[in-house]
């Protein structure tokens, strides 16, 4: 039970206190997370001065709402 509670905390700590090498599987996961944020977050949510629209995530949310 204790392990289940500490695992997410450990994952978060390891993501914050980064000690992994480039080209490790942890690095791949971090890169995927960053690219997902960059490409999926609607520019309107971030008030992007150079881009507009709702982006892929916005389209999906709109589609779900319909």
């Amino acid at each position: 039970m204790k392990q289940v509670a500490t695992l997410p905390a450990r994952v978060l700590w390891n993501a914050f206190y980064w000690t992994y090498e480039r080209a490790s599987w942890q690095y791949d996961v971090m890169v995927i997370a960053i690219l997902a944020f960059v490409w999926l977050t609607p520019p309107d949510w971030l008030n992007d001065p150079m881009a507009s629209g709702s982006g892929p995530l916005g389209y999906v949310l709109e589609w779900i709402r319909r």
Partner: protein
Amino acid sequence: MTVTGLIGTVCMFPLRVIIDTCVRLRIHPNILTFVGVVINVAAAWALALGKFVTAGVIMVIANIFDFIDGKVALELKAVSAFGGFWDSVIDRFSDISLFIGLIYLYSRMGRTDYVMVAALAMMFAIMTSYTRARAESIIPKCKVGFMERPERIVLFMIGAFTNRMAAVLWVMLVLSIFTVADRIILTWRELRNAEGVVV
């Protein structure tokens, strides 16, 4: 092999040709470093004008020079303490130029919010290298944290080519803050563990 490892291996093929050409022409690595910063200033200029795709293309060219200088130095047996120092100093100029390009663009658009985001990202990008340099004068190694220069450069290119610079700046800012914090924590721990050092 991981995905990022595979991308690195594939990118190495054209770079190998460029490195071999520079070695054959016996181009001094310090000159390659300097050419890199000059081209990066051109990329910053394109960013300042809001021409992101042009800036992205120029950044790719500039960072080829940035990447190969060390490898050319090794193969020409021209590795020197000054070369390492010169490379680090010039890299900071390149980093700062790109941020200044964006700060100029956002200030011209009247977007104070993103002027601040870019300025803070620039501050923490500089602090990332400063904390490591300063730490390594008192502890053997301080290489923790995700957001180092190669990651920053690739993110700049992704932001430029896909017009997602705002998201990229947020990622750079948050992860650079974490990286600086990681380096402070590591240095504190190392000094605390070292005998006879009072922290």
